[in-house]
């Protein structure tokens, strides 16, 4: 039970590393921003798995707050991308 959860947690962290690879390697700026967006969603999954593993519910609050903050961050980045050329 606990071992399975630990393995799933390690897989999830390895996928975060894949997102970091995309952020470092990505040929253009929008590619890096896609990596940042997906990274923000994956962290919510990590919060869920840790809250099951430790049995503490307050970690889910961190997850909800993380979703909303990463959403605002992505919107700001997207606005920067489109506003750079159109002068909106």
């Amino acid at each position, binding site marked *: 039970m606990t071992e399975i959860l630990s393995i799933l947690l390690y897989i999830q962290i390895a996928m975060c590393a894949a997102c970091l690879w995309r952020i470092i390697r990505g040929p253009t700026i929008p590619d890096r921003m*896609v990596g940042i967006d997906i990274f923000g969603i*994956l962290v919510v999954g990590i919060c869920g798995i840790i809250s099951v593993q430790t049995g503490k*519910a307050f970690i889910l609050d961190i997850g909800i707050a993380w979703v909303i903050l990463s959403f605002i961050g992505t919107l700001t980045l997207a606005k920067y991308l489109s506003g750079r050329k159109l002068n909106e």
Partner: protein
Amino acid sequence: MNEMAAIVLISVGVLFNLFGCIGLIRLPDIYNRLQAATKCVTLGCCSILLGVMVHFGLGSAGFRALIAIPVLFFTATVAAHALVRGAYHFGTKMDKKSVKDDYRETVK
């Protein structure tokens, strides 16, 4: 019983996340990457949160996980729209395999 159901749901979620990340690494240009990653990672995280809800039962923690699911759905899709539109206006080229582009005349 509840424990088994929770573990199965969380495993399915991690599997979908894995597909999304393979897509993020393998696909050729930003539009295709965003498609694969947004769909798979959003549904995977929703499945993980559903598993958390099954594990905790319908109490204080369960409702928190249940609230997080629609929030995640709406924010992820709206962020994907904003990102793909910003990338197009930024001038990112589509991949060589692309066959059709109706949006180009509208932008100009």
